[in-house]
């Protein structure tokens, strides 16, 4: 199983403003898990209701694909510099 990203480093410089952030994604994961557990009965009911029409299977595949996509962004780096502005995003 792929490991989800742990940290996101953001840096923005728009001339007069400089922002630097380290987002601890590993702390957001337990929160997201709690929310998912709370909403899981509703999600399950929705999938079961939509299953005969085929949308339930699609919803389940979307959830797994979204998780796969989230885990795949580890290593993404975007560095853009233009005159006095720069944007840096790194996912670790």
């Amino acid at each position: 199983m792929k490991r989800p990203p742990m940290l996101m480093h953001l840096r923005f410089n728009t001339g007069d403003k400089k922002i630097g952030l380290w987002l601890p994604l590993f702390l957001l994961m337990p929160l997201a898990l709690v929310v998912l557990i709370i909403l899981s009965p509703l999600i399950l009911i929705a999938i079961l209701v939509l299953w005969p029409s085929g949308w339930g299977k699609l919803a389940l595949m979307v959830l797994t694909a979204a998780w796969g996509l989230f885990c795949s962004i580890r290593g993404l780096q975007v560095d853009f510099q233009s005159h006095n502005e720069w944007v840096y995003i790194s996912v670790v």
Partner: protein
Amino acid sequence: MTENQKKILEMLSQNKISAEDAYRLLNVIDAEEGKPESTVRVEPEIKTKPKYLRVTVLPNAEHEGATNADRVNVRVPMSLIRAGIKLTSLIPSDAMDKVNDALRDKGINFDVRSIKSEDIEELVEALGDLQVDVESGREKVKVFVE
């Protein structure tokens, strides 16, 4: 070709040893037998799987005003590209037909439904040899895989 060299090549053909080991053993035999290195050795190409797709846009130092040019450095993990291609399987069939029609209008006769996971791996492996260098005016654009 000596007996020892023949034996090594036989073992390689029977997959008893890897290409790397065969190359090392052949070199050892050459050194022991004191042969000059006149024979051509093809080094085994160890192709590592591409991990990232890199796109860089850097100022062209030879051009005036290049210091003010934009700089871009993007590194995209291959796993993200694979996951993105796999998302095509989630497109509903109605939308898939529209996508195919739009591609056909642009002259691309390709069915998006025909993309399979084996094709994705083949595509990613083929990207390992990708290298694009564009030099125009103030900027140099490079697309490569590492």
